[in-house]
């Protein structure tokens, strides 16, 4: 994960200093990570190993019935619901992640213009992030419903301009239900992206902008060549986080549409949840989870590899 600083000579000097051998750092470092590693071992690693074991068995409600090897994994390949859920989840990833990054950055840039009332705006945009999702999703069901206020507003506008306008049935049709989930997710999470971006933008030294200004750079050029590269670690962080979040999308479609109609908004994690807690197929559920894990893991490794090309760190 060592991205190079712009100046190679400078960087190597720093590297040498950092890696000057200090034997006492070894045990010290282990002491630092001890509380964390201890907790992880119990609540994450142990649990994971258990679930890996479960995925190799026919595990019903009260425990393993039989060891089945890789049967659970093999049967996934023939499971049409799994394929459908995978497709839906891919849709969520390719819509939610870029939309959220772009919206969040645009809003952060707007709020970084020194407008009056910035705190109020930030507060408003952040409000959904801290709201209980269940409450938010239920309100969205009311708002987006085919007889909801939004549909009424659209038909009212239609009457005003003399055109028959109507809102597509966002929640009741298999074509649009995923978009309803995307809308809810954007409403809920964009504020987080905004706040993180805003914190990053405030860390960009004003001198760099001033220098660029003196050099006659346009606002677009300053954005493109100063702001975007300097906040790239933030972008990388948000990108990874949101990609993982989108792959693991569960509560949003679960509360908003129950994954329906006709499984059109079913996410892969809801498929895991259904398998485990509705159908008591623990082995199958674990197998899907591990499949998903390898999927995300490969994706992240790929991103991590490509980050060298566009992420700039100050040190190392």
């Amino acid at each position: 994960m060592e991205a190079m600083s712009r100046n190679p000579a400078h960087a190597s000097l720093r590297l040498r200093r950092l890696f000057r051998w200090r034997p006492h750092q070894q045990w010290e470092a282990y002491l630092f990570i001890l509380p964390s590693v201890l907790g992880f071992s119990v609540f994450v690693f142990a649990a994971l190993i258990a679930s890996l074991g479960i995925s190799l068995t026919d595990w019903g409600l009260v425990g393993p019935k039989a060891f089945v090897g890789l049967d659970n994994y093999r049967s996934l390949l023939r499971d049409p619901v799994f394929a459908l859920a995978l497709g839906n989840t891919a849709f969520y990833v390719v819509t939610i992640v870029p939309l959220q990054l772009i919206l969040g950055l645009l809003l952060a840039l707007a709020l970084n213009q020194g407008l009056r009332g910035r705190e109020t705006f930030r507060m408003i945009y952040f409000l959904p992030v801290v709201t209980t999702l269940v409450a938010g999703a239920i309100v969205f069901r009311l708002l987006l419903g085919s007889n909801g206020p939004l549909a009424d507003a659209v038909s009212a506008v239609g009457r005003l301009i003399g055109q028959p306008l109507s809102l597509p049935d966002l929640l009741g049709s298999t074509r649009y239900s995923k978009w309803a989930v995307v809308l809810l997710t954007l409403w809920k999470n964009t504020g987080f992206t905004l706040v993180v971006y805003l914190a990053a933008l405030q860390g960009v030294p004003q001198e760099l902008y001033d220098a660029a200004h003196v050099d006659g750079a346009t606002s677009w050029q300053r954005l493109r060549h100063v702001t975007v590269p300097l906040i790239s670690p933030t972008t990388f962080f948000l990108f990874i986080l949101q990609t993982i979040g989108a792959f693991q999308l569960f509560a949003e479609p679960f509360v908003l549409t129950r994954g329906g109609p006709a499984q059109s908004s079913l996410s892969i994690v809801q498929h895991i949840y259904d398998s485990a807690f509705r159908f008591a197929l623990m082995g199958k559920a674990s197998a899907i989870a591990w499949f998903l894990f390898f999927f995300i893991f490969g994706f992240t490794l790929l991103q991590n590899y490509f980050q060298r090309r566009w992420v700039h760190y100050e040190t190392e």
Partner: protein
Amino acid sequence: MSLRNRSAHSALLAVALAAAACSPAATPAPTSQAPTAEATQGAVTLTWAFWGSPEEAASHRLVADAFTKEHPDIKIETWNEPWDNYFTKIQALWASGDPKAVPDVAFLWPTPKYAAEGVLENLDPYIQKSGYNLNDYWGGLLESAKYNGSVYGLPRDIEVNVLYYNKTLFDKAGVAYPNDNWTWDDLLAAAEKLTVKDASGKVTQYALAVEGGKFAKWVNQNGGGILDDYVNPSKCRLADPESIAGVKFFADLMNNGYAIRDADLSQAGGDEAVFLSGQAAMIIQNTSRVSAFNKANLNYDVALVPIPKGGKRWNPAGGAAWVISAQSDNKDAAWTFLSWLQSKDGGEKIYTERGEIFPALQSAANSPAFLTDQPPANKQAIVTEAGASGVGGFGYFPDWDELNGTIISPVLQKIWTGEADPQQVLPELCQNVDQFLKDKGYPKK
């Protein structure tokens, strides 16, 4: 080493300690635990689990108190979760494998699925020993609580679906109230008049609101079915012409704007909400709605659900059941409680009087507990529909939940949205159902 340095070290130590063994000082004593029971000599404590709103929970506690009054040696501790969470929670408890964590007596649906997992006690020996009368249950109802021919649960109520109609809206539209002879054609004719659209063609008042999940009513009334055998199936029947016609009748009600689409209904808050608000003039539903409608002083009554010409009356025989955990330490006491719950003058009476259920026992339904002077007036319609109960609404085998949840109901949902034509998708659906049954080894034996 400065002072500051040491304080930082102790902070680290504190964190490490907190992580390793989060101090238990803050834990208040659990309010309800076993030790109190052991203290009372000879008394047995049962944990009793059910789902429900705070109001329903109040009814359950009343029942528990009434039982303890008759059986002072058995104490009941209640355990309550909201409906949506109940099954997640109870499955997690069973999966933990810790018998102390699992309730002794629980409310459950569907019984065969859990019986197949081995977590439920076979009730046959208890029934034989005590001479408990199974004949008082409505026809077909006990099938829903059987597994491999043995009874694993006692259903508390039976789902009796009747036609609720809003008299005010019928009067406004000048439509005669439904009667016992109504057929599907009469329903369509009334629906035509009861549907109100605004200038843009948007429906503002639906004639009918019925959950998509109740489609089996139309199918069975028309002589169709879902499966050839509901206990040990070998073949899907949804592609039979009678079944397709039943599904199509329902789908057309929605496609013509007479009935609210299934997905829209759940967004609008379910049939209770749309009936209360006058958005729908009729609903088809079980008796659980009565108390809400009476509370709102709604001007309504119930009627028999219209049948097709030459069709037959049919009602799905099913209802959540009381079960005993196979891991219970107090099975005899649990049976005492269970058989009291399911007796005409015990639990059944209290639930029925409070308007929460239509009783599983015919004797309780024909008692004053049910035949009150409260609305709806036409209680005979409910009794008649209950008498038409039979299998056909769902499978009584362990894999039914999965089959229905992942294969059958998604296709039906697509039909309810108007995006799929029953004639085209049902034959393909049946192929998938047959494949599923084959993969799971049905028919067994």
